[in-house]
């Protein structure tokens, strides 16, 4: 069983996406993939890496490309003694503002060096990845102290961009880790589910009863405490339903069309959502149908997927709701019910 007295398991928010680059960035990253860093001339300055617009006026920056680097000069720096997992180097390194030869604005990048080498004025040079490691991304290179501090050859010269730059997109992967904790109301709800119990809280102001891991009346803006708790029976009425045709996505376990219902539990005024109906085909589910809860057997019962604020309202504690065979309630009684 999940121990709800402690923090939840770390949650990994991960999603891949592909960014389109547009003409300026695709020109820059295509040049980078071939070992050439470029900037763009905007007014009296060469901005590198290039921007699509003049950062000071917002005007179109145009496409007067200029070769910059591969050497440059550090203007400010910091020492990262303990890199994060997202940093480009997994050993102590520096982040620095580096003004590349031929450029007037600095770029932020990583410098692989020792801490005592870092100082404003340090000459550095780009060290490019090669072969399969080249992605046409900003992390295709890191900087290292320049072996020869003399000016870069060709820096400041015009760069002829290909008509159709090769790198048109950038793959990115968002990867964040969260550790949430069980809110008190979630813990109480989890404990109830594990004991095959349902409860609601009655708002002292409007007399409505909300259900689940939700300690507030969202109509009145009132916090509901233990004094407002009311035990509920595991019977209710289907107030709404949808038939879901599953599409494959990470975490989707269903393969055939299935039904998900909102259930108005007898005595409550707020429905419990995302409930499963068992014992009948999806096509026979109706609004107004009376149903009774079927708990997962002790031992199998869990609240592993329960989240705060009523996410995963009955989680792994309930098998589903089984039609009782009693006559339906009038469907029109279930319009305009709280979600």
């Amino acid at each position: 069983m999940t121990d709800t007295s402690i923090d939840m398991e770390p949650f990994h928010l991960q999603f891949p996406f592909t960014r389109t680059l547009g003409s300026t960035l695709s020109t820059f990253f295509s040049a980078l993939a071939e070992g050439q860093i470029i900037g763009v001339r905007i007014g009296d300055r060469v901005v590198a890496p290039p921007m699509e617009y003049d950062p000071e006026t917002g005007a179109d920056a145009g496409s007067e490309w200029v070769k910059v680097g591969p050497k440059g000069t550090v203007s400010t720096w910091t020492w990262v003694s303990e890199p994060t997992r997202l940093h480009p180097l997994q050993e102590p390194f520096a982040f620095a503002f580096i003004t590349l030869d031929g450029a007037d604005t600095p770029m932020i990048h990583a410098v692989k060096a020792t801490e005592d080498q870092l100082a404003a004025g340090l000459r550095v040079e780009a060290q490019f990845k090669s072969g399969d490691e080249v992605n046409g991304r900003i992390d295709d290179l890191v900087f290292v102290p320049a072996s020869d501090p003399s000016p870069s050859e060709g820096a400041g010269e015009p760069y002829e961009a290909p008509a159709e730059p090769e790198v048109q997109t950038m793959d990115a992967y968002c990867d964040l880790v969260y550790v949430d904790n069980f809110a008190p109301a979630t813990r109480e709800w989890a404990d109830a589910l594990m004991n095959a119990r349902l409860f609601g809280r009655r708002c002292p102001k409007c007399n409505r009863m909300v259900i689940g891991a939700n300690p507030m009346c969202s109509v009145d803006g009132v916090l509901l405490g233990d004094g407002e708790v009311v035990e509920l029976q595991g019977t209710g009425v289907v107030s709404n339903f949808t038939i879901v045709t599953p599409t494959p996505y990470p975490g989707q376990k269903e393969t055939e069309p299935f039904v998900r219902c909102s259930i108005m539990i007898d005595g409550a005024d707020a429905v419990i959502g995302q409930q499963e109906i068992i014992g009948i085909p999806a096509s026979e589910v109706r609004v107004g149908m009376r149903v009774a809860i079927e708990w997962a057997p002790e031992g199998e019962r869990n609240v592993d997927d329960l989240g705060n604020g009523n996410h995963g309202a009955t989680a792994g504690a309930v098998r589903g709701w089984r039609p009782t065979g009693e006559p339906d309630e009038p469907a029109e009684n279930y319009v305009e019910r709280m979600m």
Partner: protein
Amino acid sequence: MPRTENDIAIVGFAQSPMLRRSEHTEAEMMLPTVQGAIKMAGLNKEDIGFTVSGSCDYLSGRAFSFVANVDAYGAWPPISESHVEMDGAWALYEAFVHLLLGHVDTALAAGVGKNSNSDPTTLYTIEVDPYYLTPLGADPWSLAALQYRALLDAGKVTERDVAEVVARNLANAKDNINAQVSADLSVDEILAQPYVRNPLRKSDLPPVTDGCAAVVLARGKKAYDLCERPVWITGIDHRVEPHLPTLRRDLTVSESTRLAAEGAGVHNGPIDVAEIYAPFSFQELIIRESLGLSDDTVVNASGGAQGANPVMVTGLLRIIEAAKAIMEGGKNRALAHATSGPCLQQNLVCILEGDE
């Protein structure tokens, strides 16, 4: 100067406990705070003409937290509501502008941040330029440290100056009942702390804080109806700079702060107290200079962001602290500052005044 129906004042405020980890969700933190601010103004939820909050779902990692947070308002019958993915100080700016339209005479602005769920050194890499900075894992500590180094190299401050800022703020926080962190630390003790990003020390970092704050505004005569000593917002302005710190001409000044301060009318009279949102201690010195404050102004009597830093709330807390100095502390003119984005990218300045 007599107040008119175009003058807008703070008439109520509240804040939640500031905690390293609240066991509550954002909505649960918000409800007592929002309703507390409304109660302080002597109002009921039905009396609020416009409601706006600032928060960011990426902090808690719960999608649509900002929608769930509407439950805290008791939004039935439906209310006029808005949301900014910014500090609550910018929510207050929107509420202020909304009141200027003249359609309603009360508004509520709130900020909420459940920061404890996430790790700032990785989370904020998705806030920076997605092409040039996110793939490098450029984190706020590193970006701040680059600014700090530039400030040192320019000869404008020393590490000892910055350690004095830390020592003063942590000591001031002892007198702030709402502070999460406070301490008696000597400058030498601070200077002996290790760097997390040379020259940035652990003591220069703000704490990680869960919290919420809310402010009720009222317009013209309504403000006098609700509050014995309304805190008038006589000027408020905010400015933003290019998102890439490398495109700013000089990292050691805050041009957006200077312009916002000018726009808010900072120089129209002496400033008794100033509340500055400096996420990293050394930034207080940059902001202070850019605001053009005199040595007579008391800065961050609350301890500032070093006492508590609920991201999405800290700027609004500065406004509340400055308002308290007028409403409860007998001061006449106060300044509140809020910031957002890497290396002080965006800055808001608010001038508050009591009646003579």
